[in-house]
């Protein structure tokens, strides 16, 4: 009799745990749903830009900009050249956010240089946007150390917001020839994955 009571007690506790988990799950989803409109408003974008319809829950912590036009920006490279993303339409572009203090960023930068060399003639261009406001000397040091052969420039605080906010580094956006984002990655990706994404960008929006 006592055993039966104990088993029933365990059953009741287990049912209570299931109910609690379900309720917690429901509340969590409701909270995310409630937050989404607010997060979209935080992304400054003009109508029609990628940010205006971003879905901040679509990929791992990144706004899902895939399939959307890449937000345009104009920045000055280390050698003083003004580079606008719009001017690169017709090319596949890799926009890579990095920082001088970011060790994984510097692991993949030589790969980008290698792929710039390999696919540049096919219309591929890498742009490296430094997020940590380093001095020109610091950027030159990194450029020399990792052997970049593509423009490095300072992100101006607006570009990262337009790309959905850069919460950690590295983050990369692969843009097709038509100016639409075809893939995005956060964190260090494998070299093969980087190359596959570049090929995807080169194949997308062909003219």
């Amino acid at each position, binding site marked *: 009799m006592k055993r039966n009571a104990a088993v029933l007690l*365990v*059953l009741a506790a287990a049912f209570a*745990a299931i109910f609690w988990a379900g309720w917690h799950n429901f509340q969590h989803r409701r909270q995310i749903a409630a937050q989404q409109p607010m997060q979209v408003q935080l992304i400054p974008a003009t109508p029609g830009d990628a940010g205006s319809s971003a879905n901040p829950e679509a990929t791992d912590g990144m706004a899902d900009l895939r399939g959307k036009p890449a937000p345009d920006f104009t920045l000055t490279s280390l050698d003083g050249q003004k580079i606008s993303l719009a001017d690169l339409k017709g090319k596949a572009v890799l926009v890579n956010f990095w920082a001088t203090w970011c*060790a994984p960023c510097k*692991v993949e930068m030589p790969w980008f240089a290698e792929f710039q060399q390999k696919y540049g003639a096919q219309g591929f261009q890498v742009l490296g946007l430094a997020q940590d406001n380093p001095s020109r000397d*610091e950027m030159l040091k990194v450029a020399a150390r990792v052997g970049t052969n593509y423009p490095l420039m300072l992100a101006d605080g607006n570009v990262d917001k337009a790309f959905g906010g850069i*919460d*950690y*580094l590295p983050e990369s956006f692969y843009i097709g020839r038509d100016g639409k984002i075809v893939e995005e990655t956060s964190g*260090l990706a494998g070299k093969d994955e980087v190359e596959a994404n570049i090929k995807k960008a080169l194949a997308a929006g062909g003219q």
Partner: protein
Amino acid sequence: MIRLRRLALVVALLAVAAHAQIPEPRGARHKSDVVYLSEAVTVQSGQPSDVELYFRVADALHINSHTPSDAAQIPTTLTLAPAAGMKVEDIHYPSGTRYAFSFAPKEKLSVYTGDFVVKARVTAAHAGSYVLTGMLRYQACDNLLCYPPKTLPITVIVNAR
């Protein structure tokens, strides 16, 4: 009776599984990447004493040591403001452990993981209770990505006898 027990077991397993499926909020994984663990410490007044300050780096993360292997990396640095009647003379950091990203095994970093202790040498002029405030500046990464530098405000309560 046996059936009832089996049913209880199945339901209990279901309960555990249901709990495990609760999704982690995005970005919350490393909300507190470093925490300060110390409580009040007691020192002898009138002589230099080492105060041990305990910190814990969240699982799967590392922060650069005070002497990173690459000058571009942000060192972990503790600053303590002196309090009236208490001098902070020196701060001693532990050595970092060697760490390499799997994609670049040859590039060794000097990092702190798990628990680490920073020692502050202080001298209290008189017996009494002192409150030191300070900041731990650090920059955290996991095995694939890095977070922007942060500062962790800390309060150290030092009781001098």
